[in-house]
């Protein structure tokens, strides 16, 4: 085989995102460290945002820029969003993938992509 599968393909592509989105969103909502940031938001819109985040973290197609990340989280940074909350999200992401039997090497790659957005998300 000369063709290398991308991370997105190895994880299972869009079907994997679809399988992960409900599980991930449930974990985030029941995670006391971060659930307060999701109070009162439109759940359908939030689920769609989680889906685009997961697509990006899984190495899938996206057009997010650092600026989009900053604009999208600035109001949360004002409310105290910090490193510990980003840690929690990355942890929940890993737990979601473990539940879907994704291998640890792939989970580490996903975590690294999520990690790469940290400074933009925290607006620094």
């Amino acid at each position, binding site marked *: 085989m000369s063709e290398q599968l991308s991370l997105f393909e190895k994880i299972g592509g869009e079907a994997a995102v679809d399988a992960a989105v*409900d599980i991930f969103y*449930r974990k985030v*909502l029941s995670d006391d460290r971060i659930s307060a940031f999701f109070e009162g938001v439109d*759940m359908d819109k939030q*689920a769609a945002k989680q889906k*685009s985040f997961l697509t990006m973290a899984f190495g899938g*197609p*996206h057009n*997010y820029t650092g600026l*989009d990340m900053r604009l999208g989280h600035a109001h949360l940074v004002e409310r105290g969003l910090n490193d510990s909350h980003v840690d929690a999200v990355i942890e929940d992401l890993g737990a979601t993938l473990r539940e879907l039997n994704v291998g640890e090497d792939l989970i580490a790659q996903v975590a690294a992509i999520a990690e790469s957005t940290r400074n933009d998300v925290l607006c620094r």
Partner: protein
Amino acid sequence: MVTIRYAKDNFELNENQSVLDCLTGHGVPVPFSCRSGVCQTCLMRATGGTPPEISQHGLKDSLKLQNYFLACVCHPSADLEVALPDDDDIQAVIPATVKSLKLLNADIMHVVLECHLPIDYRAGQFINLFQNQSLGRSYSLASVPHEDEHLHLHVRRLPQGRVSGWIHEELRPGETVEIRGPGGDCFYIPGNTEQGLILIGTGSGLAPLYGIIRDALSQGHSGPIHLFHGSRDLNGLYLTGELHDLVQQYANFNYVPCLSGDDVPHGFAAGRADDVAFQQIPNLKNWRMFLCGHPEMVKIAKKKAFMAGASMKDIYVDAFNVSQSS
């Protein structure tokens, strides 16, 4: 050359250009974010023409059926007339004659309307009913197309409600009113007929649910269908006879009237409708949920249903928000 029509303006779509790029390029304020068909921020609706299938990928079925699409991944090969979801003028005004008015209980009026033009709707959607040009309110449809000849509404009289007060006090059969619609994505999607349905409603939130249930049954839905209708006391419940008749007629339909007040006679469940439902069916994995009525109940029940295993795409809601300018 493909033309995109938005609010009476015609824009030419360049080759390889998305509808989003075309519109924003001409200064139309379409919100967007991911630009790759995932985040659904650039949701729009085709009011003329058919959006390409790929531009509807990932949308809820009820939105697909109403020709909603994602502008950032929409490359139509034929002309398209489009609108933003919040555009008010998305539909024309239709005159309708009041056929009958009948109280269902002390506060809720059964309103039957005969449209002067055919209206294509699904049971559970809502229409806007206008008292005059600038004063209208949304009411859910309890009728089922093909089953019921006319439109049926359950209008609850609100304290100081201008439109509901007018409907209860002044409107008479034979008068003509103006309506606009339908709208809303809380309705039954045919298919997956063995899936279990749970419907939770408070007060006149029964209106869309009564339509959805009869729609599902008439389309041969074979999975279990559980209705939990809640009110504080007996006087708040209505259509109980009709619902008990449906239970007799369909083995897969179950009706649980719930009373949250102190006096709960035999045959009724004690507690709020959502609490009773989640107690009786604690694991909601693979269930389809319909939540209608009081906005606070809908909000809480939606989150509870999701946390109890229902998939987000399987939760349909219709929150009866009371207008601030009542």
